[in-house]
């Protein structure tokens, strides 16, 4: 009980400190924090669904793009908070439809299906804009500063991780773990697999939609090739997998160092970025087979620190 209380206090304190950070840094520092928090939220939201179910989704950018596009379309007609609500609602609806359709798929079929989905949405948005509205490329002139975007993302990240923590302790979390380990067993013990998966997919997708919506004002100009850039899906996936997707803090621990690494590499090696990044990736796979968090934990227990932290213990070696 005391430990839980301490954890909450610590969490709140850390959050306050993070919220205070932008006042100390210039625009670039804020930009860095903003980008980092964006990916922390994306990776955490992605892991909400994909971590426990082991369904690797490449649809991240579909929802991200939907969010950004909703803002672009509505930026001059609705007040900002309402736009975010609409974006979340659109994301939720699409997620429910997609979720219902994808329940039958498994493994790599699901991976490519979600990729196809992202491309399909991009193509349809393009076609709609070209043929129905007669424009392509929309402008967002919202007076929202980098700091404000950062604070929104920070709040969303906190909610996402909080949600992950709550799910981990609830009945759903338990059900999910069973599904992840063996769907047949899960079905036999009376878990409604479809409903659990659908709910989780919808929550995860809605958060991702919001990330896109919140970040969009930063770019001024939006077109499908910009907001539906598949790189976003790949980076999210890589960050979450690297940190350890079935742990609460895994995505965060994957996103932060990777984001800083990307930044450092692109600042210092603009011409050999890809090569170094690629080699690092390969090295990481060989050196840290279980993700950053698992490795950090193992390092800790070896040094003799006390055991695990207060978090759901992931299934480490089993798949």
């Amino acid at each position, binding site marked *: 009980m005391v430990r839980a209380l301490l954890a909450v206090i610590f969490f709140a304190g850390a959050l306050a400190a993070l919220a205070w950070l932008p006042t100390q840094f210039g625009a670039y520092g804020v930009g860095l924090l903003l980008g980092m928090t964006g990916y922390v939220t994306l990776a955490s939201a992605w892991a909400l669904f994909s971590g426990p179910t082991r369904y*690797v989704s490449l649809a991240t950018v579909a929802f991200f793009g939907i969010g950004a596009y909703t803002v672009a379309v509505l930026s001059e007609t609705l007040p900002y908070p309402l736009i975010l609500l609409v974006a979340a609602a659109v994301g939720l609806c699409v997620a429910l439809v997609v979720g219902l*359709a994808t329940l*039958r*798929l*498994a*493994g*790599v*079929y699901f991976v*490519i*299906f979600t*990729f*196809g*989905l992202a*491309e*399909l949405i991009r*193509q*349809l948005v*393009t*076609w709609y804009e*070209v*043929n129905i509205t007669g424009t392509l490329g929309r402008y967002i002139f919202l007076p929202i500063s980098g700091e404000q975007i950062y604070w929104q993302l920070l709040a969303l990240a906190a909610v996402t991780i909080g949600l992950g923590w709550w799910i981990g302790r609830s009945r759903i979390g338990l059900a999910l773990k069973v599904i992840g380990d063996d*769907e*047949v067993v899960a079905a036999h013990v009376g878990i409604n697999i479809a409903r659990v998966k659908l709910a989780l997919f919808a929550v995860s997708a809605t958060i991702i939609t919001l990330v896109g919506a919140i970040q969009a004002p930063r770019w001024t100009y939006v077109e499908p090739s910009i907001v539906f850039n*598949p790189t976003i899906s*790949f980076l999210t*996936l*890589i960050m979450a*997998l*690297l940190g350890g997707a079935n742990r609460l803090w895994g995505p965060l621990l994957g996103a932060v160092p990777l984001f800083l690494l990307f930044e450092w590499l692109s600042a210092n090696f603009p*011409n*050999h*970025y*890809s*090569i*170094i*990044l*690629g*080699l*690092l*990736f*390969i*090295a*990481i*796979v*060989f050196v840290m*087979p*279980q993700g950053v968090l698992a490795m950090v934990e193992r390092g800790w227990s070896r040094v003799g620190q006390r055991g695990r932290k207060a978090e759901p213990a992931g299934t480490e*070696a*089993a*798949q």
Partner: protein
Amino acid sequence: MPTTAIVSGLVLGGTYALIAMGLTLQYGISRIMNLAYGETIIFFAFAAFLLYSAFGINPIAGLVLLLPLAFAFGYLVYGVMMQPLVRRSARSGNLEVDSILATFGLLFVIQGVMLVFFGSNYTSYNYLNVGVNVLGATIAANRLLAFGLAVLIGGVLYLALTRTRWGTTIRAVAVAPQSAPLVGIDVNRTARFAFALGTMLAASGGVMISMYQTFTVSMGVIFTMKALVVVIMGGLGNLLGALVAGLLLGLVETFVATYIDPGLTLAATYLIFLSVLLWRPAGLFGKATR
């Protein structure tokens, strides 16, 4: 008019099938989800371009030179990068995630090396760019060649897989990698061979594409994804499936472009893909695993 659409659709699909068959071999038999597949294609497209423009070697002759090189390259990559992962996965069962991460890294390395050597410019040259009359439709000879090659490779490999002892071995590894060693099959060697074979097919696709498509070093991922879509639609590891799915996609694109709206070709591609998956979750020719 419909014959024109059918013929040009099939020929377009031939290209898709050609690039997809290598990937289906690599995933279906070697169990490696190779995200760097498209980069391999682009690399060999550049190689063909280089041979043609610098040494005057035509791409057909270039193919003869490049294919063994590609096989060796695939063999090496599997041996150095994939084998340790495969071995490790015997314990952790993480091969899918590991291979995605590792080949994602490989993708960046190949792309970065190409950027340094070839720069980021669009590259294009013409070879065999002449019209050939097929059933009243005018088709570019280079595309027709790619189609022919796809059908040839598909046919030969299909026969080899179903009619030879070697093929039986490969299929055994594809179906039951755990049990194959029990009957004396060297799974590792077979997987390595299949991976190299897949790389060779990627190379042949790259050389063909270089003759009629403009390419840049950043384009690999487009080919990877197109190939993946075709592979998944056909059913993983199923060569015939990849061939049929590739041709089908070509037909769909051409028909949509001709009769509905060229703006919807890619949307239609993905729509067809998604519907096929919803109808048959393991692809056209795949067997459901569960």
